């Protein structure tokens, strides 16, 4: 009792200390955060992740030496524990190497979508277990979609993939390698992307702005600053980023993370050069919890409601622990479907060939039989002839 009393001011009950208790618990437990990077190869995804966490989380892929060009999309998970001021954050980084690199990119988003759905699914299953203490949770909290800095607009592949992702996870579009776009080009490019995103009804993640505080007039200074910050973030979407892992000294003599060109030094953490700081603020500093909570509340709930709702309709009389039918993954994947068709075709062809062979065989046998029968007849007739001859001879003898 006495220890608790120390922290609580003497004239209050102590309820106001609750947030502090909470803080302590969270601090000890740590948290986890899963981020997915998605985009064509060579847009600087790996570099960006390393820049974001300021360590070499992911190593550059070793160059494929010999061997043919890969045609598949992989899912590549990197796990790490980051510690800052004794607070531990477990970070899972999911990369999708091979996305958009082939000649035919139709359906190449399927692997990514399936992965996100699978995580929701496995989490839901774990929740339904009688003992559900240990949870293996890889639900994706944020998807960074890297857009190629063409200066033109979004490609159909980008649009299709972003549409699909945005219904399942928090989507944050970023323009990669913006050090090849001048200010003017960048602003037109951003404008076009925003137009397309709006008209195509792609829902990107936006930091929540609590309008009610403003309208109620109860805005404190702290609140309004936060709102202003969120506004700025929304305005500069999609974020234009530059990534680097190297440090250089700029003209003010300060060591900064930057890219060094013969014509200048691009400082990553300089707001007039790129939006990296804004993006980091959105991802980590101010809105990390929003990302995690909205995944839990919006996307996971939507998935769960859909799955459970569906299965309820199918077997209404089943009792509470509903056995959700396994997701029909196999039949859904178009690649598998193609493969299945090919196999079926192959199978029928094989059967046909075998049948043909058997028929031929049968024909041969029939032919053989006819031939043998003929032979037999011949021999029989010969025998008859001979017998007759014998008879004749015997008659003559008498």
């Amino acid at each position, binding site marked *: 009792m006495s220890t608790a009393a120390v922290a609580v001011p003497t004239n209050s009950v102590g309820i106001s200390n609750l947030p502090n208790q909470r803080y302590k618990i969270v601090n000890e437990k740590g948290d986890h955060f899963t981020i997915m990077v998605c985009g064509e190869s060579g847009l600087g995804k790996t570099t960006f992740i390393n820049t974001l966490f300021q360590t070499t989380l992911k190593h550059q892929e070793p160059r494929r030496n010999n061997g043919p060009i890969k045609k598949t999309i992989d899912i590549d998970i990197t796990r790490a524990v980051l510690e800052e001021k004794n607070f531990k954050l477990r970070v899972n980084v999911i990369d999708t190497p091979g996305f958009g690199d082939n000649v035919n990119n139709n359906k190449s988003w399927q692997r990514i979508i399936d992965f996100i759905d699978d995580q929701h699914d496995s989490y839901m299953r774990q929740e339904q277990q009688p003992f559900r203490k240990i949870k293996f949770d890889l639900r994706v909290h944020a998807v960074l979609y890297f857009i190629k800095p063409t200066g033109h607009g979004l490609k*159909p592949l980008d649009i299709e993939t972003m549409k699909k992702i945005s219904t399942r996870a928090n989507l944050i579009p970023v323009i990669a390698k913006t050090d090849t776009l001048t200010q003017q080009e960048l602003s037109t490019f951003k404008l076009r992307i925003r137009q397309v995103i709006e008209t195509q009804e792609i829902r990107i993640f936006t930091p929540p702005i609590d309008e009610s505080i403003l309208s109620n007039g109860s805005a404190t200074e702290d609140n309004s600053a936060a709102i202003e910050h969120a506004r700025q973030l929304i305005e500069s979407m999609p974020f234009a980023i530059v990534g680097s892992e190297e440090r250089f000294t700029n003209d003010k003599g300060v060591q900064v993370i930057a890219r060094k060109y013969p014509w200048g030094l691009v400082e990553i953490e300089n707001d007039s050069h790129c939006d990296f700081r804004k993006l980091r603020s959105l991802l980590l500093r101010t809105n990390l919890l929003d990302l995690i909570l909205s995944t839990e509340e919006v996307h996971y709930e939507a998935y769960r409601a859909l799955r459970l709702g569906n299965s309820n309709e199918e077997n209404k009389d089943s009792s509470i622990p509903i056995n959700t039918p396994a997701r029909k993954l196999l039949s859904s994947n178009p690649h598998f479907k193609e493969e299945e068709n090919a196999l079926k075709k192959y199978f029928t062809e094989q059967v046909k060939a075998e049948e043909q062979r058997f028929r031929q065989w049968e024909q041969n046998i029939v032919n053989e039989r006819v031939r043998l029968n003929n032979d037999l007849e011949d021999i029989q007739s010969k025998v008859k002839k001979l017998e007759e001859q014998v008879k004749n001879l015997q008659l003559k003898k008498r």
Partner: protein
Amino acid sequence: MNRDSAMPANLLRRKKDTKRGITYTMLLCGRDGVGKTTFANNLLESNIFSHKYNVVNQITAENESKVKVISPTKVVSYNSKNGIPTFMSELDPSRAQFEPGITITSTSVEIGDLADETANEDDIILFNLVNTYGIGENLDDSLCFDELTTYLEQQFDLVLAEETRIKRNPRFEDTRVHIILYFIEPTGHGLRELDVELMKRLSRYSNVLPIISKADSFGKEELAQFKKTIMKDVELYNVPIYKFEVDPEDDDLETIEENQTLASLQPFSIICSDVKDKNGSYVRSYPWGDINITTDNISDLKVLKNVLFGSHLQEFKDTTQNLLYENYRAEKLSTVTSPHIGASGKDNTANRASAAPSLSNFASLVNTGQFKSSQTLAMNLEGARTPELKEPYDNDQASPIKKMSQALKEENEEIIKNIKMESPLINDHNIPEKTKLRNISETVPYVLRHERIIARQQKLEELEAQSAKELQKRIQDLEKKAHNLKLREKLLRQQKDHSSSSSSLTTASSGTQLKKEDTLTDLASIASGRN
């Protein structure tokens, strides 16, 4: 007299060439957004070409003395899965999810010698610039391969037909592509499947010169590393690109040295820009510094220009003519005329009989072609040719298609008329005995044309069917959308009626509710697709 005949052969040819002007055709190829258009503008030091989504009607060559547009940009070939042309349209966000297909355009300009300032004033190059749009933008890019190779093949066919004809056309324009610039994206990772495949296919018809565009995304060491990676990949996948080779026996020291330096620079890396600074030189200005695009140690643009218009122009033309075209010709002629050649050696009656199929084939085309073309083209055909690029497309999709089909129809009819006029023999069944050569010269052009016409007709029919299908689909989609919207409106109205009595609480939350509903319906549709 004597002096004239002592003139070296190549000089003579040069003189002849300059009198007519040198024709020179270049194809720019590479994914959308790597800077082809900007490069084209920089190359000609003008702003003839307008950017995607940014159609400007400004065909004003700033350097009037050097560049003159003869025929403005026109679409020469076009294909798309949904059959709807997108070239040079304004950005339409609501249609951005449709695949743009591939468009090939051609622009002819007349230029004075850009690279060589000291050259004669009347040295004129008739420069054809062929540009491609839409590579890498489609979900499935395999369409682009065929379209490009067909285009290049067609140019060869045209020349072949002209060569073998009895009456030559004095105004014939050689549109064979002499050099293809393949733009590689600055990924830092090496070549992709598309790059390898495309370069391999294109190299059968022309010299392919890979260049790295937007080199301003690389630091010095990164650029060197990337160049090395590209060359390694080129070796690894056996991509037959143009190499600056040296022949120690034939070439003089200077050429050897030059080629060696060029080979060491390959693949060229370039930086292009549309913006001029106060001094009139093109720059890219960033918050962290300005780049002058002609600076030698940053961008190889100057070197590349020199190679393209100066040192290697004739070389590119020669390899196209003497090696690639000859190969193609030998191959083509042996397939087209092999029956005649085989038969003509034996006796003449057999020759006539064997010649008959291709000729009669052709005759049947003449007889039926008119009928066929008018029949198929009557149904609103969509064409490979737009009459004029700068004509604004209406929102109504039918009108450009109609125009195209009209133009094509006329052209087709003209071709058929020409063929009829030129070959009185065709309808005459008593064909006199011919030599082998004559036989070839009479059949080949027509067979080639025949092939071309049929191929084009097929393509048009396909395009038409696709566009009809696509339009149908879009109409259905729109109807569905309208229906959904109506339903939603009804729902909202009902909700409003319900909640109007209670309080404003529900209206505030209806926004978020709607959002969730959207997610649900999308997921539901996907799930239903699965089952």
